[in-house]
């Protein structure tokens, strides 16, 4: 059922399928073995079935009646010494009931993650093997491989990873080996500082080489700074500086500011999608962006929040732009959440001058959850020949919670904009959650 191209290219001598099958077999074996040590075993699985009805995204498009099945599985066994071993996997299957929706195929499938994780009760030690998302400083990578992390003495910590990057590569052939790591120092009351590096190869060619520093500072109560700078040592330039600070002088008030600086030549190096590569001239390698922003939010009660935000974009080549607005939100997760927001974009091109409105509400009535969402973007001038000056979308959703395990519902979506006249789409959704727990003797908790 799994078509070949839904996998990343297996590196030589390391066939992915074998690795995955091997991993799963090993996982099951390990989970079944060692019953004597086991305290509890927790199995949980969720299945979400979706039917999408209506037209596709394009003017020339066909009828897209598509069924999706998202499956998620977690089997986890905890041991008496606080260690645990888990198998985690998630993926989807697609079947087209009418026309082919994508890639000239009627069916498709993908494994989004699938790994075995051994976690120790001490030192935050983790060993993961399989397909996983690694988030360590410069690396936000999905890979098939091994990941290891541990606390070291005196507040230090280290993480290492090695594997084959999972990339979808419609336009360019990509790398097939990636490795790297991150070294941190943490003072739980004040900060976490990290240095990280990532290297990747396409066969024997250096493909990506990135180094970075990251920080999370919270020196006094209410002050929080996060940030990262990353350097591309193949293009020999800084890719990005991205810093965000917030200050909460009172529990009700929060002030925040952020800075992002991007050098396109270094940042967009070796992407595998043409939309974001230098080849189709949408992205200019000589461009540099500096975005500065900030805002405030005020929460007079636990549920009510008023906020205002502002962001200024500056470029070396393109004209500058400003984006600002405000939002009023109410949230009480048990019965009602709603909000209204208005934003203005003021930029150098026609496309970048508009007002954006949004209003939404979600309410629970008994076992039913209702949601309504309205979005309207009003351009200052017409963008297309059809004189349409705004892009409007309305969507309504209903979910019925039959039991803790089973829920079902659907939504309807209407939109009109400069590209499409009137478009209506629907989606039906059925979710089933399964959970089972087995506690060994004396393991009651």
């Amino acid at each position, binding site marked *: 059922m799994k078509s070949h191209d839904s996998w990343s290219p297996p590196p030589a001598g390391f*066939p992915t399928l074998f690795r995955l099958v*091997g991993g799963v077999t090993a996982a099951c074996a390990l989970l079944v073995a060692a019953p004597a040590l086991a305290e509890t075993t927790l199995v949980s699985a969720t299945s979400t079935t979706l039917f999408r009805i209506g037209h596709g995204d394009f003017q020339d498009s066909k009828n897209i009646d598509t069924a999706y099945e998202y499956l998620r599985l977690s089997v986890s066994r905890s041991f008496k010494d606080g260690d645990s071993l888990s198998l985690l996997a998630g993926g989807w299957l697609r079947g087209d009931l009418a026309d082919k929706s994508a*890639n000239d195929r009627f069916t498709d499938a993908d494994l989004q993650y699938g790994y075995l994780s051994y976690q120790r009760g001490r*030192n935050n030690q983790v060993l993961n*093997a399989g397909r996983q998302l690694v988030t360590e400083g410069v690396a936000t990578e999905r890979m098939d491989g091994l990941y290891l992390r541990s606390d070291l003495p005196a507040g230090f910590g280290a993480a290492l990873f090695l594997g084959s990057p999972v990339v979808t590569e419609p336009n360019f052939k990509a790398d097939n080996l990636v490795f790297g790591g991150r070294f941190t120092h943490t003072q739980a009351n004040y900060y976490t500082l990290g240095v990280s590096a990532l290297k990747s190869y396409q066969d024997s060619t250096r493909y990506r080489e990135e180094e970075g520093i990251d920080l999370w500072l919270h020196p006094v109560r209410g002050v929080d700074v996060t940030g990262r700078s990353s350097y591309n040592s193949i293009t020999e330039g800084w890719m990005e500086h991205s810093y*965000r600070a917030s200050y909460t002088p009172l529990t009700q008030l929060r002030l925040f500011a952020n800075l992002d600086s991007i050098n*396109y030549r270094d940042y967009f190096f070796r992407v595998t999608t043409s*939309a974001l590569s230098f080849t189709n001239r949408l992205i200019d390698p000589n461009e540099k962006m500096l975005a500065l922003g900030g805002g405030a939010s005020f929460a007079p009660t636990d549920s009510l929040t008023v906020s205002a935000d502002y962001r200024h974009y500056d470029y070396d080549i393109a004209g500058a732009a400003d984006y600002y607005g405000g939002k009023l939100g109410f949230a009480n997760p048990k019965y009602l959440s709603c909000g209204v927001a208005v934003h203005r974009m003021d930029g150098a091109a026609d496309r970048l001058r508009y007002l954006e409105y949004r209003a939404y509400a979600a309410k629970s009535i008994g076992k039913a959850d209702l949601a309504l*969402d309205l979005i309207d973007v009003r351009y200052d001038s017409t963008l297309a020949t059809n004189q349409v000056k705004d892009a409007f979308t309305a969507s309504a959703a209903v979910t019925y919670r039959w039991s803790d395990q089973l829920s079902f519902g659907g939504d309807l979506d209407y939109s009109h904009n400069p590209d499409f006249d009137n478009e209506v789409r629907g989606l039906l959704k059925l979710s089933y959650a399964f959970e089972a727990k087995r506690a060994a003797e004396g393991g009651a908790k």
Partner: protein
Amino acid sequence: MKRNNLIPMVVLGLVVQLLYACAGTTSIARVHPEPVQGLVDCAQCHTDRWANLNHRAPDFLAKHGVWGGTRAACASCHQESFCADCHAHKDDLKPSDKYKDAPERALPHRGDYLNQHKIDGRIDPASCLKCHGRQNNEGCKRCHR
């Protein structure tokens, strides 16, 4: 091939044992001790560093990436599937389409995104790369060859 896999495993195992002997911290709780629902303000219960991770803050989404460097903390409430909804590898459905019933969430791409992406992609294409640069880009090929 099996042997190739085995050697690094054994080496890693030894490294783990070595480290185990040195440091002495208790791992972050595997399951968050208190159940929470919806976008939570962690400061309602926490005064330690976790108080900063107020999920309702307007800048939460912009900041969660760095906090994600302490994955064990996220994992006490979130399974990897939660991250994969937005950080997709090769998906067909927009995150906002999967959860139309949660309009309060900051899910990417509300509304008709094929229209809006021309604006967002022009203003800050670097912000797209995080999800569409090397993954989740099959759909783009249909128009951007």
